[in-house]
């Protein structure tokens, strides 16, 4: 079982620079989900807007232009606009992804449909409350270092040493940006409301290898040793296929399942 295929897929993508020059000046058609639950009489609809494509245009740029020119009420979330903060997850032509780093030139027919991420509470239009979801996930998994020694640390003294390889390995798993794409791509999550999902599993995997964290396998079993946890995963791997950070979800879920299964007996 390998987690490498996602990395290769990214590398095989053709050069965007060449593509974007070729498609300059096209007319793009945006089909955007519109619904404001704050307004009682409002009903969900799909609204279409057309825009002239600019070189290097991203969905971030396009949505801002649409808001300014056509619909001042249009709701969406961007913060960093550089693919690191995880605010702008949405369903782009059927797949969850980060809108800020998606170039319009990626879509050959110039038609781009945008829907809010499912599963999360809808704030309005393309804006969903991932923050609330992630805070509750963090509270459930307790995504912090559990250590009794931590309380007695003298900050003036040399830090505890850590193997460089281990630090690198933790960082690899620490790169999750909590964008929610894995949750939206997960069929199990649709069926089981309390299912933790890949974002939670990758956190468990991250703290599980961290030698600063004292939690045992038995402790982790309480968090993920059920159908709401790692045994509920149907292994469809929507998480792995749609993770914007190419995190090794498949590998880590399999690892945690083996570990938890061993712990159960």
């Amino acid at each position: 079982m390998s987690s490498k295929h996602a990395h290769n897929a990214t590398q095989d993508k053709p050069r965007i620079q060449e593509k974007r020059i070729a498609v300059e000046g096209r007319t793009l058609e945006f089909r955007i989900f519109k619904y404001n639950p704050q307004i009682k009489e409002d009903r969900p609809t799909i609204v279409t807007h057309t825009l002239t494509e600019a070189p290097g245009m991203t969905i971030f740029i396009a949505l801002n232009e649409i808001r300014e020119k056509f619909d001042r009420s249009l709701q969406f979330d961007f913060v960093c606009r550089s693919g690191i903060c995880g605010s702008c997850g949405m369903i782009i032509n059927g797949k969850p992804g980060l809108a800020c780093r998606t170039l319009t030139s990626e879509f050959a027919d110039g038609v781009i449909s945008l829907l809010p991420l499912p599963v999360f509470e809808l704030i309005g239009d393309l804006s969903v409350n991932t923050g609330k979801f992630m805070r509750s996930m963090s509270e459930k998994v307790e995504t912090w270092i559990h250590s009794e020694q931590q309380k007695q640390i003298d900050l003036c003294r040399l830090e505890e040493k850590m193997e460089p390889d281990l630090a690198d390995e933790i960082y690899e798993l620490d790169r999750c940006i909590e964008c929610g794409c894995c949750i939206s791509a997960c069929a199990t999550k649709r069926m089981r409301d309390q299912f933790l999902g890949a974002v939670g599993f990758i956190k468990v995997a991250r703290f599980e290898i961290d030698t600063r964290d004292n939690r045992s396998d038995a402790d982790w079993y309480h968090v993920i040793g059920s159908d709401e946890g790692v045994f509920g995963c149907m292994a469809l791997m929507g998480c792995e296929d749609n993770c914007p950070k190419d995190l090794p979800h498949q590998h880590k879920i399999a690892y945690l399942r083996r570990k938890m299964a061993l712990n159960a007996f």
Partner: protein
Amino acid sequence: MKTVVTDSLVIGGGLAGLRVAIASQSRGFDTIVLSLTPAKRSHSAAAQGGMQASLGATIKGAGDNEDVHFSDTVKGSDWLCDQKVARMFVNTAPKAIRELATWGVPWSRVRRGERQVVIDAEKITITERDEAHGLIAARDFGGTKKWRTCYTSDGTGHSMLYAMDNKAIALGIPVHDRKEAIALIHENGICQGAVVRDLITGELIAYVAKATTIASGGYGRLYSVSTNAVICEGIGAAIALETGIATLGNMEAVQFHPTAIVPVGILTTEGCRGDGGILRDKDGYRFMPDYEPEKKELASRDVVSRRMTEHMRKGKGVASRYGDHLWLDITLLGKQHINKELREVKDICHYFLGIDPATDFIPVRPTQHYSMGGIRTRYTGESTSMPGLFAAGEAACWDMHGFNRLGGNSVAETAVAGMIVGEYVADYCATHTLNFKSSTIEHFVDIERQKIDELLNRSTGEDVFQIKKSMQKVMMDKVGIFRSGDKLESAVQQLRSLLDESKNIAIHNKIASSNPELVEAIRVPKMLKLALTVACGALARTESRGAHAREDFPERNDRDWLKRTLVNWEDSQADMPTLSYEPLDIMTMEIPPGSRGYGIDNTIPHPDTAVRKKQIEEMHAGMPPNANRYTIQSALMSYEVPEKYQGKNERIGEGFK
């Protein structure tokens, strides 16, 4: 009217705000954090290359200590920082790194033995010490004597912010996100909290608190192209300004980062050059050694940005449809290094430019990046003029950066200021009672409600998006890297008339609840006031210092300008801020003004400089021969740090020396 009462109210859920909240909550005070976004999405997450702290574990950092970090920081500031604050900072930075290590940041660690690095475009082998194996590593950054920037690949801010927010969650600190503070509540000159708008429901809520800390970041989005997140619009500083009581400091000190990608302005870290990357012009020629033979690409940020602009003005820029740019070349670092240590840069190049930085040059240009200015505070983080109001991080002018911040010193400031200011906030909560009148609270909420009603009811008027764009263009064109009197004069006039127009904004979308246009309409007049503080400060300062470069006044003028700009907005109906100045006392400086070592030294000296230098020489001569560096330092300048952070820092091979 909904009212929430707490001890410690923190506005801003980034690194600085969260750390202040952790401090006050840990001391037993009820604490609430307000944030525009979920805390983990704050702009702190965008810090790439690392955090400075003088741990000295890597061999290229050996011999580093607080004194060297202090000297780099003071020089970097072009001598306008508060040296006492810089001392507090350098002493606490190693503790901040170590604290974050216990909270889970997977800092990159030193690996024993030989490894190949690129220094000054040459491959060199260095050997890390056996005994340092497993300690926190550091990379090189601009304007520093030692390798001091601790990191996790180029996602340092992300790792730090996640560890910090997780710690806040562990402590049960509530983060009220998607909430915006739109005015401060105050009585008899004392801050009592904030009027807050819920960005989903539109509800106005009064948050009443003993201590209110603004940690909402910088004001980069006053400019049309900035590396900053789109939420960095300076609203925290603006609501302080609008009290008419709190003052802002050094607003004209705005940093341009040398290497943001063209055209979108997304940052590629200074770590690119720290790890050995170089700058090239349209001929592929490496030009920085011609301008700065000693530090080359690793001169301080303000210097590199100016040299790049100068070089492009000579016609050496690469022409593109988005204007001229230069090339950042990191190909010499190799694929393996880029994939591991500069992977965000690699992703940014891939997604936004369609290039691979292991084989292609990156198109870059100096771009607005950091706000040295902010809410003027004492060393405790408390406003100098408004009790009960504190500020920390980029939102503050605590003043460790003066007129130019060193790379790696900003995330360091967020964590360190959070620790220090957080203690003083807790002290304030411990020694003050909250006495508020509901009539005062209602008065402030009513003012905001009335403003919002006016915006929703006005049927014709100005377009808020147009006003914002015009402001950003004025700032970009006329208050940028190189400044001059005539341009600044015209910027001030344009901004004044935009401010006037902003009183007549009419919005198309009339919904009182979640409404992005209304959010803009609330913010833009505030942003215009901030823009005026920047432009007026820049126009008045007839010298060049750090990031403030006046082409009509190229000298650093210590004689007349060794002073901090203060600005306030006394009359809410006025169309201009009021400037005043706070002189720095050379006679109490640990390092009196000198040359930064870039270009020619054309400083107009202050008469006290020579006197203080002589005094320091005499002090050194009078020291016992066995005096250690702590004794010498305390003889030169005294400073305060909260008791729990006063200890000396241990280093490998040095102990506590």
